[in-house]
């Protein structure tokens, strides 16, 4: 199966580990992620301003790229891109006036009327591949690895774009279970990591990250799994500071769900690019016999 794939900027730079492990895993599951031609930045943050149609140009242009390759669906892997594209798409679908303004403004482009469906990779795994067929393809079950799935906000909020139950999502739980991991449920799984407040309010982010990580540890997690490069940056990069401010905190590896997927499908660990993770997960994985030393 071929699916149009929108990578976004971060997956080409800081989150290469996310992209490489995702693309390789999907190929192993029989899904060929075909990168869109001429894609541009998703716009990063969905604009809340009522009168800022200009902000919608970036995401909508990407959707036009999808329409041009005659595809009716586009897969995103980064949660932030997912959120921005999906919401821009909803706006275009539900607001004929803004749709008209945008189409008129982009006179060099073909008209776009919401023909494309935006989905996240987790949805593809659930709805197109299926948990059962994933677990059948697992070569190396993640036995004994206690992982806390962390959703953050952008996969779930607002409700109209949620890929699962907003308050009690299970989609990543289900995936990790299919991979044989020991899934750790914890109350902060859907709390915000602080997001781009990291730029203007880094102390606030430290606070958020500590709440999330300490709760995951209290509930017995050895690692956290997520899908968002923004969350990964905050949860990973903040740990150096937290080790100094919170005695006894030794750190906890943060992994992309796709890295765990690739590993359990028996792919070459090279595709996981573990060297890019902020907290090196390799010692933990080795101790569990999931990685050769």
């Amino acid at each position, binding site marked *: 199966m071929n699916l149009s794939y929108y990578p976004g900027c971060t997956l080409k730079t800081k989150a290469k580990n996310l992209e490489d492990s995702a693309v390789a895993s999907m190929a192993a599951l029989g899904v060929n992620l075909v990168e869109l031609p001429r894609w541009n930045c998703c716009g990063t943050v969905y604009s809340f301003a009522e009168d800022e149609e200009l902000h919608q140009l970036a995401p909508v242009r990407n959707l036009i790229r999808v329409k041009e390759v005659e595809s009716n669906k586009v897969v995103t892997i980064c949660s932030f891109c997912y959120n921005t594209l999906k919401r821009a798409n909803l706006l275009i679908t539900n607001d004929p006036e803004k749709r008209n303004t945008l189409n008129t403004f982009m006179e060099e482009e073909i008209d776009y009327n919401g023909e494309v469906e935006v989905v996240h990779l987790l949805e593809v795994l659930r709805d197109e591949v299926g948990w059962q067929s994933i677990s059948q393809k697992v070569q190396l079950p993640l036995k004994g690895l206690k992982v806390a799935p962390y959703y953050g906000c952008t996969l779930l909020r607002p409700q109209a774009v949620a890929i699962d*139950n*907003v308050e009690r999502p299970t989609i990543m739980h289900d995936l990790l279970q299919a991979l044989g991991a020991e899934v750790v449920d914890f*109350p902060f799984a859907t709390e915000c990591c602080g997001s781009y407040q990291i730029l203007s309010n880094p102390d606030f982010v430290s606070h958020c990250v500590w709440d999330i990580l300490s*709760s995951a540890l*209290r509930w017995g997690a050895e690692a956290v799994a997520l899908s968002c490069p923004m969350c990964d940056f905050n949860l990973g990069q903040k740990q150096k500071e937290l080790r100094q401010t919170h005695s006894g905190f030794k750190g906890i590896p943060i992994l992309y769900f796709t890295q765990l997927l690739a590993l359990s499908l028996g792919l070459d660990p090279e595709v996981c690019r573990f060297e890019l993770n902020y907290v090196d997960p390799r010692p933990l994985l080795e101790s569990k016999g999931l990685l050769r030393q």
Partner: protein
Amino acid sequence: MERIGVFLCHCKLIPPIDTGRVFEAIGNKPGVVYAADYEEMCMAPGLERVKEAIKDEKLDGVVLTSCSPALYEETFRHIVTSAGLEGYQMVVAELKGQDGAKEATQRAIEAIESALERLRMSRPTVSSRVPITKRALVIGGGIAGIQASLDIADAGYEVILVEKTPSIGGRMIQLSETFPTLDCPQCIETPKMTDTGQHPNIKILAYSEVEGVSGNIGKFKVKIRRKAAYVDWDKCNGCGICQERCATKALAEFQQYLDLPGKIAHRKAIYIPFAQAVPMRPVIDREHCRYFTKGKCGLCEMACPVGAIDFSQQDSFVEIEVGAIIVATGFDLMPKSEIAEFEEDPDIIDGLEFERLLCPAGPTAGKVIRPSDGREPKEVVFISCCGSRDPEHGVPYCSRVCCMYLVKHALLYKHAVPDGQAYIFYMDIRTTGKGYEEFIQRAVEEDKVLYLRGRVSKVFRDGDKIKVWGSDTLTGKRVEIACDLAVLGMAMLPSEGSKELAVKLSIATDEYGFMTELHPKLCPLESTVPGIYLAGCCQGPKDIPDAVAQGGGAASKLLSLFSQDEVILEEAAVS
């Protein structure tokens, strides 16, 4: 009909209508020979004009317009019949609920056109006189149904009271103490329950449900299913030895399925639901009884001194004839699991569960404990509007009693645990009943109950504590409280199965499933079917005083029907 007159009413309450356009549109309709408009036709001078026109123009059919056909039909019918026409020769068209002048005129034209069509199809009716069967059916044995039954029975008429659980009493008998006077239901409801059980005119059919209904006001035929209790209630004398001997425990409905340490809130597989039950008769719960699950046991059978246990009992049916029906099926609470941001945890409970923990006659004898470990909670958070006033959770309405029972809970908790702290999160405090505001003031001033104005976003376990996240909108700050127990004021919903019952009775329900009264202000006791009345929370959330008032009111409506000997039913004549 050959000579039809159309009377257009308009007043300041109806959006302006272009009468000229209306007349133009309907003037050439077949049969229409006369059209007139009048301001406030519903008043005496207007009605006189209609009467005169019918006579002068020799009309044989009329269409009247009105803001509320349901309310004016009766009045119009009197006028039309006094002018010599019969009821079937009149149709009332509704002119309400339109917006914008242009639209209003178009809608009025359409309403009149369809009324003309109905008039054209209308056939003479034959009226038949039906003798009234002076026996009443009351469905639901909560406080509303009990009150209605007693009032009817005291007036000298027979009542059949159908209750789906093994005992009457309803939610009220589960409560600890009742606001605002803090009297205990065991003291104030039990006498009414006993009176109901002993009244020569009342027959209680407990553990029974309405299976089907046919007929009309004056004479309904009702089929009732008596669920198998596996105990012959005629032989049983209610001694209770069976439940003493039974060796199987199960979570108890009456205790809201509370699972307390040492299983102190459990009941047996054969059980009398509570100590004051009426009737005082046990039932066997097939799902847990070892005789049914394992095929052998029979401890109760061996113990019963009168041989009342009957494992072979089947559901049975009785058919009764009644002249009128009162529906009083009460409410259920929205399940806690509907609010996903509140975790499922033994120490996150709803109001009815907390009532059982507070109740001096309850499983803990009124000692407040945490269900998880039996410890006394030192900090308790009460959360208002869980589901209610929250369209996201499907309940935009206010459940009306939660503000009061949560403060009652906080106050009773403080009386039980004087060194404890009670917090109440609220949106608004609604205390409109008599003595209610004073009750709140007392809790705040004397018992130091702490009110926090804001909503709660998340409730979850954190080690030994329950964490509550909310906002205090008065200080604009986020608050986090680590407490030992959280009590949720869950929304009130119509009781389970009331929708199905409404279908059997052909009465209307609103979008939430509450039974609809005939008119929201002027007919609050009547259902949409003549001869069927409503009482208590089946019609909408309310407290005990209101439920009792409505129970008494429904009974008096029914009694005024029973003061006549026959009803006149009109049916279209079969030609």
